[in-house]
């Protein structure tokens, strides 16, 4: 039982941090219906920026994170304006390929700028893990859960209470109606890419600390898809649930069955889970149900 509990807790914290990455995907999809295959790479870019500011230019950590936030928001604007706006109205494969291409570009670009070797992103967290009897939670995981919850609270406030947040929801609901009500759709698109930039920084901080910053950080982006498919592509609450389910299930299956199959179930279970969900309930647990049959 102890073993199970520790696996579960570990999986749930992991899932929370997965959800942090997936949030960037869902925000974009919700408002602009762009499928962003470059979430992992954006996160990697943010991680590289922070480590570069700290390591190469000797800035304090807080300043580095602040500066990276600014740059990633800017990056979001430029990306939306330069690459994705021309894609509007094209077949879905164009969009997928454009973001895939962007991801490949960034994977080459960041190491060329700042070196291929793995860099540590030191958050100056206490080294002592949190112990609850037999369950051990490393501080970075706790920080990750904290950041996820904090960001969620911020987004909830933003979407429910602020004018621009409500504008984003209106655009997500019906672009033409939103336009007719005087909302500038292009501003809303830019805004959601800026939000994605912010989540990329948050993800970059947590994952960069957890596994180090190099180009392999971007591979985490592929973990996003089981999470968002499970939760529903356009549901922020679903992202969290999806993240928790994926994190917990991969950890529990990995913990119990890895010894029978020679390891690596962590990379296998989420995708099988995702396929099952796709077969039964393609729009996910909380996604908007668009019935389209042929």
């Amino acid at each position, binding site marked *: 039982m102890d073993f199970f509990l520790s696996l579960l807790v570990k999986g749930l914290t992991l899932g929370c941090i997965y959800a942090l990455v997936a949030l960037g995907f869902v925000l974009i999809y919700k408002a602009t219906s762009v499928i962003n295959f470059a979430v992992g790479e954006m996160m990697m870019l943010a991680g590289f920026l922070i480590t570069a500011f700290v390591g190469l230019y000797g800035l304090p950590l807080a300043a580095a994170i602040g500066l990276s936030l600014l740059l990633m928001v800017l990056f979001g604007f430029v990306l939306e304006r330069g690459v994705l706006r021309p894609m509007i109205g094209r077949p879905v494969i164009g969009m997928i390929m*454009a973001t895939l291409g962007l991801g490949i570009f960034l994977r080459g670009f960041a190491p060329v700028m700042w070196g291929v070797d793995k860099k540590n992103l030191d958050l100056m967290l206490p080294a002592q893990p949190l112990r609850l009897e037999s369950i051990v939670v490393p501080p970075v995981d706790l920080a990750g859960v904290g950041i996820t919850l904090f960001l969620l609270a911020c987004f909830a406030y933003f979407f429910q209470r602020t004018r621009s947040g409500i504008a984003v929801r209106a655009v997500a609901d019906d672009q033409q109606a939103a336009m007719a009500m005087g909302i500038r759709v292009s501003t809303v698109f830019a805004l959601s890419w800026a939000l994605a930039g912010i989540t990329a920084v948050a993800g970059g901080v947590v994952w960069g600390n957890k596994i180090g910053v190099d180009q392999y950080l971007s591979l985490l982006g592929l973990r996003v898809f089981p999470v968002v498919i499970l939760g529903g592509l356009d549901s922020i609450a679903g992202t969290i649930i999806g993240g928790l389910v994926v994190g917990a299930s991969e950890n529990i299956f990995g913990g119990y069955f890895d010894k029978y199959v020679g390891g690596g179930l962590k990379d296998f279970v989420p995708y099988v889970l995702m396929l099952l969900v796709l077969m039964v309930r393609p729009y996910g647990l909380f996604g908007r149900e668009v019935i389209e049959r042929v």
Partner: protein
Amino acid sequence: MINRECGIFRTTYQADMSLYGVPLARITVAAFALFFALVFPFVVDHKHLVWANFAGISIVAAIGLNLLTGYTGQISIGHAAFMATGGYTAAIMTTRADVPFWVGLIAGGVFASAYGLIVGLPSVRVKGFYLAIATLAAQFITEWIINHVEWIGGGFQASIIVPPASLGPVRFDTELEKYYLVLALVVLAVVAGLNIARSRLGRAFVAIRDRDVAAEIIGVDIFRYKLLSFMISSFFAGVAGALYVYYVGTATIEAFQISRSIEILAMIIIGGLGSILGSIFGAVFVVVLPLALEDILEFFRGVLPVTDIDTFVSQLKLMVFGGLIMLFLMVEPEGLNRLWRNVKDYFRVWPFSY
């Protein structure tokens, strides 16, 4: 004269569907075939022959994916999984059952197409992005299975050594012999692709791509044709995978990872969706570009202000590759095929271009 389509009107459906649109096309095709069979392999050196062989294998895979994505409109981000199926089938059958090369090749295609049928099943229910994700899942699951089922992959990160292909008394050992083998299969794939595209099957595919509901209404059995498209496409991929394994001499999972799937997708995007000629352009472009880039940078070794030139080259290749995909999508979404047509159109009316 180059302005050759002047005065040729297609008055029957047969004429519209014919393989050669204009009489001159026969001559150009024959000229190209002769060039690649008799001239090309003897004027280039060994290195460029290797490039040509890799490009040829990629052409087979790209034509397959183009039939699925370009013609039928079903996205697959897991095509390397089908290549892996074909490659491993061929490798296992050759090493353990000692079957002849051609049996391995065809079996690779058949197994891959059976696997494609299974992976394509979600296309009955979902489309667009969801289908892309389902094929992505297939990619990861396949990679995992090959890595973890010892009977197939030979253990974690292992590889299977495959003897070179042979057909009767002929053994395809040298680069030149392999070139002819690849060339023959490329010709077969191109002819098959063109014939599928211009026949009833291809028209059904295009109907599904353009509007699935309308296709259903005019009597196209959507499920059947979607699954058929998956099967045919994975057959091409499986043959390409088997050919790759025979060509390189080893079957390893490294050759069939997600980056390979994206590469094949990039080929058909850069070459032109829904065009066999475009698949050829795209495959050659995507294969040759990084190799050529490597050579160019090698030339500047010592001049460039970087310490570790090999990693620099590999990163730069990624940048150029990704940048090109984005550039093509923004500037010329119809790909190299469109550029080629523009050039042809220019010369057709030259010098009276107004």
